[in-house]
């Protein structure tokens, strides 16, 4: 994927997967490898680990970047990041002179391994100090069933809002219906979480998951700025909503004004037929 060298970090305490451990591991790795720039994925782990490491090392950081680049003249690391719920983009420059940290949003499907470059990069393994005591201990983990499609990995995402009304409708019309047929991942708005339609970890938005699929199908979703900050990077948005004035239609390329209970079954049926024909 373009790396010149790969460093594997090894320590028994990393397996617990806690941010405490990752901050310690990256602190030690940076001390040994002396990088100019550290880039982390802007996922829940990176959102916490990045600013913690920046504070611990007293170095500058820019997070939630949609793009990072080096400015040739000043040597600054420039991060471009949405702010004000996606209503603006800010360009933030981190001056050279110390380690600089950025967390980067991932565009779905952008991290492809090129088959034309079969030579593996040379790798080193860093054995980290054995002693590490975290401030937290995991008592219980709730994880999705194995094989479930991650929202960030899906090229099609179906998102639901308050209009879907119940968890049962979400299951029957979307999970078992449209999303299954499309091979799409599912998520939804904060409103859908508040109404108990979807679990909190499937929230898409500024404070939830950030997805950039090829197609985002928004169902019964109003399209608040908070939500659009999490799915506005989709190449194409398709919206189904009973309210023709819903803000989501301002972002959508294709829209249907209608009740999803009537639109989605015929859409699903026809898609199943099309996909079977095209396969």
């Amino acid at each position, binding site marked *: 994927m373009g790396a010149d060298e790969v460093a594997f970090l090894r320590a028994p305490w990393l397996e617990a997967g806690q*941010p405490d451990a990752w*901050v310690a591991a990256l602190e030690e790795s940076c001390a040994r490898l002396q990088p100019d720039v550290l880039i982390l994925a802007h996922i*829940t*782990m990176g*959102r*916490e680990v990045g*600013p*913690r490491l920046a504070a611990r090392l*007293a170095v*500058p*950081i*820019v*997070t939630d970047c949609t793009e990072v680049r080096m400015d040739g003249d000043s040597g600054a690391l420039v991060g471009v990041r949405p*702010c*004000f*719920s996606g*209503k603006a*983009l*800010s360009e*933030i*420059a981190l001056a050279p*002179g110390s380690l600089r940290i950025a967390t980067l949003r991932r565009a779905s*499907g952008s991290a492809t391994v090129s088959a034309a470059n079969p030579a593996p990069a040379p790798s080193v393994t860093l054995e980290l100090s054995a002693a590490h005591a975290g*401030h*937290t201990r*995991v*008592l219980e*983990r*709730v*994880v*999705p069933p194995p094989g479930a*499609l991650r929202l960030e990995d899906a*090229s*099609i995402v179906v998102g639901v809002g308050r209009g879907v009304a119940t968890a049962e409708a979400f299951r029957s019309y979307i999970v078992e219906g449209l999303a299954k047929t*499309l*091979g799409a991942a599912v998520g939804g708005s904060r409103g859908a979480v508040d109404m108990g339609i979807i679990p*909190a970890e499937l929230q898409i938005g*500024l*404070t939830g998951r950030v997805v950039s699929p*090829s197609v985002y199908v928004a169902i019964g979703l109003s399209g608040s*700025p908070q939500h659009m900050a999490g799915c*506005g990077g989709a190449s*194409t948005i*398709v*919206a189904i909503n009973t309210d023709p004035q819903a*803000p989501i*239609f*301002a972002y959508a*390329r*294709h*829209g*249907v004004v209608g009740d999803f209970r*009537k*639109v*989605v079954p*015929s*859409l699903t049926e*026809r898609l199943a037929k*099309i996909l079977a024909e*095209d396969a």
Partner: protein
Amino acid sequence: MHVVVCIKQVPDPQAPAGSFYVDEATNEPRWSPPAQDQISTFDLHAIEAAAQLRQAHGGRVTVVSLGDAEVEVGLRRALAGGCDAALRLDGPAGSSADRSETARWLAAAIARLAPVDLVLCGRLAADWDMGHVPAMLGELLGMAVVTPVVGLEYDGACFRARRLTDEGQEVLEVDLPAVLAVSNELNEPGYPTMRAVLQAQKVPVTTWTARDLGLDEPADRAAARLLRLLPRDLTRECEFIEADTPEDAGLLLADCLRAQGLLAAGAKGG
């Protein structure tokens, strides 16, 4: 238990998207008509969590905010929401690019408020959307950090927090003192009663300056700076599918998605 809640006032995040613009001369965000300042959304959940902990376990809650005299409006709202004491830090309310100075002020104040068992913050402020402060505070204070928190349990001895992870959720046993970044799933903030609002007016707001906190001039504030702020418009022209019945619209939408080549990516799998 002594709980400290850190709050920030931001321009109304619910202000219509169309009222937002950028002053290109100064690179500053503007609203027309002006957006009212209010306590950032997630901070309201932090205030509510602190009030609930105090109600259940006693102790006291101190609310802290950094900025000029205008932040006292938010501090009094927090007092009405269940906090016991309010503290204003007379310093810069946070630049557009760098949160380390905000964290430095808050950490110095919390150290002076010792003993502190718990620091509650909103998971991010609804303006620059960074969410750096709780993580930085935990490091500067040497406390446990948990982000983003959607559940809390305390039995007087063992403190448990439920957090979102990239895969799902986790329940953690947390050593106190700790800094928690609170998410909206945690609780449902109520509105203070008129009586509480009136009582909050009588509580004095303490003010601490850089000198009170023994803070030096920041060493190098230019490490991270805002180059440009650009308005961003994601809106586009929507083509509506017209049909006699919603069932027909569903069929036409499927045909449209195929015609536009939008199904290819999904058919191949992510």
